[in-house]
């Protein structure tokens, strides 16, 4: 019995791995072993699968040049870009070899490996590396900032170019150390309010973005009108948001004071307000009480939750990579597809993003600068940001980018949003977002704070108790 199971499994495994082997390299080695005939049948069997596969497979060693640039990142996004650049500029590939290292962010592994590699230095140290919003501050302004080269020192005329490209100011704030830019992004993640047109029409009598902006108090910097709208929505049986967590990003990123000021914990009023927001949503039943990234949250995107949900707060990527897939349909009329619109939120914010840095003292400053400039500052139609915004990088999505110049000449018309051009709302979002109130401790502190808010909303702690618990956590774990 057991042997049979084991036998079946082994066969299944071998088959699975054999299927996985049908990449060109292994095919070639296989051909020397087997007779011509079997190889032939093999490859015809597998053509359907492998053809696409091989085109999609990216190389981790790009170019053939003598100078080796070590590139570290946590996804394949930037390696893909470098690949694109080398395709466009073969000369670069002849001069340099870009050696890509991708380490997942699981359990902080990417940061730990990157830190160890930067500290160890030497030939294999990263010359160019990526950091995402959750930890960029550590590399641009925090503990690890000493390893980052200023763009200027790499030979980029960054101030003039950033101004000319109209780079979103919050991305510059985040990437600036002592007045010098050390990191810039390609994506901009300024947020908008993404709402359901059908619910808007039923409850407010209009789905026009400008009128909805008026109703929720877009750009007012406070939530007063938003709560009025929420009450109206509740009367008609709708929830204004899926859960309190949806509003956290907005509260957090709209703050004007960071968590830590002069070595002391400081709770900005915009963030403190979240305690009351979470409590209000729960007590008054204004949301579906779903946490982000859970089944209930995704269900609200499909409109299958307990109550219909009026809006989500998020950047373009939330639409592209989360909402479109989870809306329960693929064309107008199915699920909530085509029913969504975007408008400016009551309070400006951003959410996520990736920044690119060069290592101070890299031996290949010129090559690193060339890549960084193309990724973060080039506004031409062959520049990365244009390709990124217009779905020419194989993302299957029109995403917002940091350069206002590029955004202005890109088209963000999306059938998912009923044919609305979503870019103007996000350009406004990029402009309104602030990156001045961030520290390297934010990810941890945010975790403690949102949990304190949940505890308060659930009634496990009173308001003072929640703040006390939060302060204890910060002082015990971060020593502030």
């Amino acid at each position: 019995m057991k042997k049979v199971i084991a036998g079946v499994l082994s066969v299944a495994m071998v088959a699975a791995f054999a299927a996985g082997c049908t990449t060109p390299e292994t095919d070639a080695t296989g051909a020397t072993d087997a007779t011509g005939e079997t190889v032939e049948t093999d490859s015809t069997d597998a053509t359907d699968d492998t053809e696409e596969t091989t085109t999609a497979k990216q190389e981790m060693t790009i170019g053939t040049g003598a100078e080796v640039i070590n590139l570290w990142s946590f996804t394949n996004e930037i390696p893909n870009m470098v690949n694109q650049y080398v395709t466009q500029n073969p000369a670069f590939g002849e001069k340099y070899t870009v050696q890509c290292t991708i380490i997942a962010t699981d359990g902080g592994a990417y940061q730990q490996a990157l830190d160890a590699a930067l500290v160890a230095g030497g030939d294999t140290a990263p010359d160019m590396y990526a950091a995402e919003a959750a930890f960029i501050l550590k590399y641009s302004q925090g503990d690890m900032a000493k390893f980052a080269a200023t763009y200027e020192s790499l030979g980029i005329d960054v101030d003039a170019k950033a101004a000319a490209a109209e780079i979103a100011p919050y991305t510059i704030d985040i990437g600036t150390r002592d007045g010098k830019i050390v990191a810039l992004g390609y994506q901009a993640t300024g947020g908008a309010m993404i709402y359901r047109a059908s619910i808007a029409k039923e409850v407010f009598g209009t789905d026009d973005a400008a009128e909805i902006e008026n109703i929720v108090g877009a750009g007012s910097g406070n939530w007063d009108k938003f709560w009025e709208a929420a009450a109206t929505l509740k009367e008609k049986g709708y929830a204004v948001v899926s859960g309190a967590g949806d509003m956290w990003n907005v509260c957090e990123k709209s703050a004007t004071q960071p968590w830590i000021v002069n070595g002391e914990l400081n709770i900005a009023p915009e963030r403190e307000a979240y305690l009351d927001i979470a409590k209000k949503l729960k007590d008054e039943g204004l949301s579906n009480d779903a946490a982000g990234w859970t089944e209930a949250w995704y269900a609200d995107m499909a409109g299958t939750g307990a109550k219909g949900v009026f809006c989500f707060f998020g950047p373009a990527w939330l639409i592209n990579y989360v909402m479109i897939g989870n809306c329960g349909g693929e064309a107008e009329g199915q699920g909530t597809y085509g029913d969504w619109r975007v408008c400016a939120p009551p309070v400006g914010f951003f959410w996520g993003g990736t920044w690119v840095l060069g290592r101070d003292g890299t031996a290949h400053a010129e090559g690193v600068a060339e890549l960084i400039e193309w990724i973060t500052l080039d506004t031409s139609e062959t520049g990365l940001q244009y390709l990124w915004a217009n779905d020419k990088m194989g993302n299957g999505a029109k995403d917002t980018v940091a350069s206002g110049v590029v955004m202005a000449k890109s088209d963000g018309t999306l059938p998912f949003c009923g044919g609305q051009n979503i870019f103007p709302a996000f350009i406004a979002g990029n402009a309104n977002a602030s990156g001045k109130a961030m520290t390297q401790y934010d990810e941890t502190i945010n975790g403690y704070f949102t949990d304190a808010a949940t505890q308060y909303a659930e009634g496990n702690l009173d308001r003072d108790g929640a703040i006390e618990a939060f302060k204890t956590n910060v002082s015990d774990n971060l020593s502030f």
Partner: protein
Amino acid sequence: MSDNTIKASSIKRNDIILKVVIYIVSIIFSIMTLFPFVMMFANAFKSTYEVQQSTLTLWSAHPFQNLAKNWQVINSKDFHPFVGFLNSFIVATCSTVLNVYFSCLTAYAIQAYEWKFRDAFNGMIMAIMMIPGTVTMIGFYQAVYKLGLVNKLSMLILPSIAAPMVVFFMRQYLQASLSMEIVQSARIDGAGEFRIFNQIVIPLMKPAIATQAIFAYVGSWNNLFMPLILLTDKNKKTLPVMISLLNGDIYRTEYGAIYLGLFVTVLPLIVVYAFLSKYIVEGVALGGVKS
């Protein structure tokens, strides 16, 4: 006479009740056990969005289309299943063999010989076993980076020679089942100490070796954190490290592909386990003759 029959029949009835209880409890636990595997398997046939909408449903609208797509995702993301399998295989197999063999040897050294520092050595092993690994781990990988030994599979294999917990188990096992008379008689037959260990003691310890080998293999195969930090070269990555690449950004996690990857990772383990479990399953005494 009749008393006896009553007694016998009541024993029989008790037997049947016991059997029913055993089956019911065992079947409940079996279902519980199989549940995560079924879930992994079912989700391998789903699209990312299907997983997000409902992780526990067992069916998908387009199972085979999704499976093909998930496999494609796996292949597009710097994921070379065969390379990963080979690396995982090398690391897990070598470290298991070293782990188990040297643990037996060390345990035997403590159990069978009387030497001056024996108790001190034993105490030291126990103490090492009790060191929390969290922070020492940081020192370890920092040193590996400093010394430029990144991307060496041996850095994941050789440390398993010193596995205090396994030594502890082996020693406990030897205490219960090694009889020095066998060793003595082998010595009288003129066998060398090393040969006695290899040809008499090792076979004696088969059940212990099998269990600890399974644990060591599983531990090494599923180990994610250290390989994640120490293996940065795509040709050196193990299967779990490759799967971690599918996590990508917060907003672009390929859940269907992750489950397929997890399933592909767990299959070899099940095979290894099925082969080694012989020693756990067979109720025959493979152990020593100490009575």
